[in-house]
């Protein structure tokens, strides 16, 4: 025990089994996702890229939920705002930038897909598409495979609250419930599906749907990343113990427009957005770390400089990187022997 031992024991993260180093790493990851996102917005406004879809305000909970998983063994099925997830799993800013610029070296799709469409077998990030919610049954399939092979992997899948109204949500959850599969369903309820407020998406609480599938459902405040960590960690433990799935509804708020193509003031007020911006979890988490003696203004300055350098370098690299040559565009329709177009 060192000097600060007693202090730390009273800290929430310690109680949750998070080491100081991990707590700091979580903060750095939240910040990295935020800075990457801000840079992407700038690049879009500058006309360097066509399109960006933002995860701002959702990163703290994304990072927390990912840290609660086993990043060596588990399967990740993120959705398009999950920069906090994929960065935490090991995707680099450079890789994200290559995707943003749709360049050949992008590991997600070689610049074939929109940004935000993640995938990396190496990182156990499952390739995703645009039609929402199709990934939910996939996550159940990964969990089924894990169970059949006796592996201890758990799959975790994200989707928005709007997307939870697709049939695939229902069919996937019900399947997982019947077979008690090791899967965690994460609904990131950011109150809007493009222009549609939650009140016009559903008259119930998403978390309550778990009752009808016979497994636990929880609603948790997305601005409290440690609480998100706790709930996901417990869900993972249940999954690993063979106790089946969990549905977690993370309450958050989308402070950006839906994407760079959206004008959100057509359907909500600036005041409403500003109010939620004030609840941003990142400064609060920094404050928490500072009070725990784990963070300081100097560290913050160093971090900002370090992350800016990473992002600058990644941006430059990606901007200059080549596109996939047009002739390569028709490869991989099928496995390579007979692959490509006919």
């Amino acid at each position, binding site marked *: 025990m060192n000097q600060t031992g007693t202090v730390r024991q009273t800290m929430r993260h310690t109680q949750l089994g998070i080491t100081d180093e991990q707590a700091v790493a979580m903060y750095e990851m939240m910040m990295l996702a935020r800075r990457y996102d801000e840079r992407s917005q700038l690049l879009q406004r500058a006309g360097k890229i*066509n*399109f960006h879809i933002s995860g701002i305000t959702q990163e703290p909970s994304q990072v927390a939920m990912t840290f609660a998983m086993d990043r060596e063994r588990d399967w990740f099925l993120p959705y398009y705002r999950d920069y906090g997830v994929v960065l935490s799993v090991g995707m680099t800013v450079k890789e994200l930038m290559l995707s943003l610029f*749709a*360049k*050949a070296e992008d590991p997600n799709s070689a*610049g*074939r*897909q*929109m940004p935000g*469409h993640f995938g990396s077998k190496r990182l156990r990030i499952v390739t995703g*598409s*645009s*039609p*929402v919610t199709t990934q939910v049954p996939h996550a159940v399939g990964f969990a089924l495979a894990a169970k059949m092979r006796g592996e201890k992997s758990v799959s975790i899948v994200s989707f928005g609250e*709007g*997307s939870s*109204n*697709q*049939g*695939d949500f229902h069919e996937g959850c019900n399947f997982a419930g019947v077979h008690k599969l090791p899967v965690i369903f994460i609904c990131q309820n950011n109150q809007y*599906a*493009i*222009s*549609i407020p939650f009140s*016009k*998406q*559903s008259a119930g609480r998403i978390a309550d749907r778990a009752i009808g599938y016979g497994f636990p459902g929880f609603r948790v405040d997305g601005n409290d990343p440690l609480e998100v960590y706790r709930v996901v960690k417990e869900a993972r433990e249940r999954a690993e113990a063979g106790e089946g799935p969990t549905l977690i509804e993370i309450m958050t708020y989308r402070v950006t427009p839906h994407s760079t*193509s*959206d004008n959100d003031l*057509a*359907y909500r007020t600036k005041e409403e957005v500003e109010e939620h911006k004030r609840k941003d979890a990142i400064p609060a988490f920094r404050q928490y770390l500072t009070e725990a003696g784990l963070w300081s203004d100097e560290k913050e300055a160093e971090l900002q400089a370090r992350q800016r350098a990473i992002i600058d370098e990644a941006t430059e690299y990606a901007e200059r990187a080549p*596109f*996939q*040559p*047009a*002739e390569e*565009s*028709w490869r991989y*329709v099928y496995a390579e022997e007979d692959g490509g*177009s*006919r």
Partner: protein
Amino acid sequence: MPVIEYIEAIRTAMKEEMERDPSVFVLGEDIGLKGGVFGTTKGLQQQFGEDRALDTPLAESAIAGVAIGAAMAGMKPIAEMQYSDFMFPATNQIISEAAKIRYRSNNDWDCPVVIRAPIGGGIFGGLYHSQCPESVFFGTPGLKIVAPSTAYDAKGLLKAAIRDPDPVIFFENKKCYRLITDEVPEDDYVVPIGKSKVMREGSDITVIGYSMPLHFAMQAAEELSREEGVEAHILDLRTLQPLDREGILEAAAKTGKVLIVHEDNKTGGVGAEVSAIIAEELLYDLDAPIRRLCAPDVPAMPINPPGEKHFLLNKDKLKAAMLELARY
């Protein structure tokens, strides 16, 4: 006659039909205050209220299924699919239900629903915001399918679709929305479903197609006329289901040399049926093999600019194919 945008023509058709008939209403994702992600339904909620410009939950099978139910109840719903790429969750409702309601009930019930879905690429939408899903629905009797290429046809065909007693899929081309403008009467008219239209008269080669690629064909035809003296006869199918057999055969017979174009991938596309109809009926009038110029047989177009460009048809690709055919 005022010249308006293709998207404006669609909006106007809905607005006028909603004014004309209180049973017409629009439903879909973000179609209310936002006016749709492309702005197609802009102003409708303000004019007609939340009920008749109904924002729905994010669930395409319900959008189609609820619309089908309302149509059976005597309403005239226009269901918007945000992108045609996202209409596949509604396939079962469209193919198993809408298409078969009249037939299975021996004409007791009907289903006058319109399903609008934007098709086509060229907007850097990538794999899932660019598709042409015509082939998925084309082989299903009981459905009607239209795919206008001009603002005039967009308005006239949408009005015809809304008034049609059977289910109609309205494939509007999102690249056309603001790119294509033409003369559109302010007064009421319909373009009949099932009738093709000669876009350009010519005697050397026949180009048959629908939607956006026809504009490339028109541009190529003008250049070929000027530069090579080749006169292309261009037929806009306008309706894909039921196809206008007579129109197709007449256009093919006109020149004996046929090029079929569409942005949907080649294998299994509408062009195969057009070709098969000609091969069945008109074989001895042909002076060249029937050609098809379509998107490649890959799952969908990439978002990166060289990939997208390589995938899409354009004036130059059309011109080359048309010239080759003329010289055959």
